[in-house]
């Protein structure tokens, strides 16, 4: 109804106010404002892609370099294998998701299903404050408290032995607290609010009838959460995890401060690793524009950009498959 009236009104006005009025100036202005975001994405893609492909176009490296494990920019024939950084980003992010997802989904379930109003009104603002804490502050906190804590508490190798089989698992201990684990822990706290709030929304979106129906069958609240709500909210939870993953993979400063930045393939959670973002912050200022080394850093940022846009597509795919409830 509203749309009909809205469409009728300007057409009568047009006659009164002349030809110029046919151009809906306000609409053009607001459209430009909204469409500026498309322009931003296009510009971002253009500039970062252009810089990112210079390593292949200008410097003559094959695109397969992206997956080569050798990073040695100072060799006679410099090697710019990005695998250590991509692998580092993946494992640090995976670690963060492993720690953060159960906590966040649990917290979302708590907020949506268990918490009385007063508890919700305490936890929700707390989460917003979590979101707002700047990443340098997380990094500073990790550097000054977590890193020393890890190296002081868990020094010495971790060996798991069974009586008959003998050693089943061993891992070097923390010589330094700068490690994969430190990075994952810092990130897990940073992405906790993201995963929680998106999961919470998807729990709230589950129709009330499913809850009452389930409870009416005599199930307990936990059974309802486990067997009804989590499956029903699964696409939303997956979306939340992907969003958390994107944020974790793109985080730069906090991670760089605590992971030790060793440009080799990740070995153990107690050992230093490196990521795409941390290597960019380490080398960007020390390299000059146009040299292959810096071009490799631009390629890293192109990889990050592609990963983040892919995650948006992934989220859309997940949500498209959401079953109509």
């Amino acid at each position, binding site marked *: 109804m509203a749309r009909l009236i809205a469409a009728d009104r300007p057409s009568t006005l047009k006659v009164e106010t002349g030809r110029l009025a046919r151009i809906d100036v306000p609409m053009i202005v607001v459209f430009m404002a909204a469409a500026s975001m498309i322009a931003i994405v296009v510009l971002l893609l253009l500039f970062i892609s252009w810089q990112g492909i210079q390593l292949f176009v200008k410097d003559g490296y094959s695109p397969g370099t992206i997956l080569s494990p050798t990073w040695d920019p100072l060799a006679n024939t410099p090697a710019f294998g990005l695998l250590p950084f991509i692998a580092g980003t993946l494992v640090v992010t995976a670690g963060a998701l492993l720690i953060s997802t159960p906590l966040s989904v649990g917290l979302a379930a708590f907020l949506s299903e268990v918490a009385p109003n007063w508890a919700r009104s305490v936890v929700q603002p707390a989460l917003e404050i979590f979101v707002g804490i700047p990443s340098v502050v997380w990094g500073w906190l990790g550097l000054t408290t977590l890193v*020393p804590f890890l*190296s002081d508490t868990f020094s010495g190798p971790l060996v798991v032995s069974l009586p008959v089989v003998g050693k089943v698992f061993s891992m070097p201990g923390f*010589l*330094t607290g700068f490690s994969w684990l430190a990075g994952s822990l810092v990130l897990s706290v940073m992405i906790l609010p993201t995963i929680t709030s998106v999961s919470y929304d998807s729990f709230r979106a589950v129709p009330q009838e499913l809850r009452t129906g389930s409870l009416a069958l005599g199930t307990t609240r936990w059974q309802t959460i486990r067997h009804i709500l989590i499956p029903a909210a699964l696409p939303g939870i997956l979306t939340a995890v992907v969003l958390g993953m994107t944020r974790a993979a793109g985080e730069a400063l906090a991670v760089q401060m605590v992971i030790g*930045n060793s440009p080799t393939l990740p*070995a153990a959670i107690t050992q230093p690793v490196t990521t795409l973002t941390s290597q960019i912050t*380490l080398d960007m200022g020390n390299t000059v*524009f146009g*040299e292959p080394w810096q071009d490799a850093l631009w390629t890293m940022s192109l990889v990050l950009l592609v990963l983040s846009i892919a995650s948006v597509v992934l989220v859309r795919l997940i949500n498209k498959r959401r079953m109509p409830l």
Partner: protein
Amino acid sequence: MINGYRRIGALALAATLVAAACSSAGASPTPTPAPTATPTPAAMTDTPAASTASTSTASTPTPAATPQCVSGSITTSGSTALQPLIDAAGKQYVKECPGATITVNGGGSGTGLSQVAQGAVQIGESDVKAETKLPAADAAKLVDHVIAKQGWIMVTNKDVTGVTNLTTQKATDIWTGKITNWKDVGGPDMPIVLIFRPQSSGTRATFKSVVLHGATEATGGQTLTEDSNGAVTTAVTKTNGSTSVIGFAYYNDPSNKPLLNGLQLDGVDATLANMTAGTYKLSADGNLYTLGTPAPGSLTDAFLAYLMGPEVQGTIIPSLSYAPVVPVK
């Protein structure tokens, strides 16, 4: 009514701004504690510097202490290792020549070289020579002004007791991963943790060429890479058995020195005097680059002359743990 609320919304933002503006307006007339461009006594821990300073002053021909004043505005960017020096000298110059403006940015040696070659800044600071970074054609357009020598010192965590000196050979063995325990160089039985600067950094390049003679450093396992002097220092103080290489200024800093062990290199103390005398090897030129020779009478020219003058070479440079150079050009 509705109009009123819209105004409140706008006021909320405006109020923040006004509040900030008021407080600043309130702050500006008060005699501010001078943003000390003058040397800090705290940094004067490296006593031998004083003698070096006086020799340098004596060799400087300019008798007048006041700089040649040119008004205008220049921007510098580049090496974070040289930044404290340019900062202090710039502040002092502007204080004496109020018509001039000198904006000092960090960003790293690579940024400085790129930006000065592009003409985006007037002066680019670099720890390394332009030829090692820029394409030959670009490097040829730049003019190098060496204004100071900077030195680095090998440091360890306090728990590495009994190690006070490393020969070039031992240091090479440690940094290439041949020696992995402090007990092999007279220290405690404790694994060595190497804390590198990024491969692109001037510090690492200098160390690699001067001490390691180009040998390939150890990688992986328990090696760390930290971004900067400050991050390296923090990492060394927090990591048992760790060692790294930091600039003199960071070692002499009163908040760092008590937490670190400084090592001799080949039995030579890491002092400015030894560095100037040429016996302490781990040092490199502090380079300022300009695009072409600066026009005579320009602020860039005047500022570079000031940097070579007695005030900077004699006082500011040693106070910040750099070594002065005999004026070039």
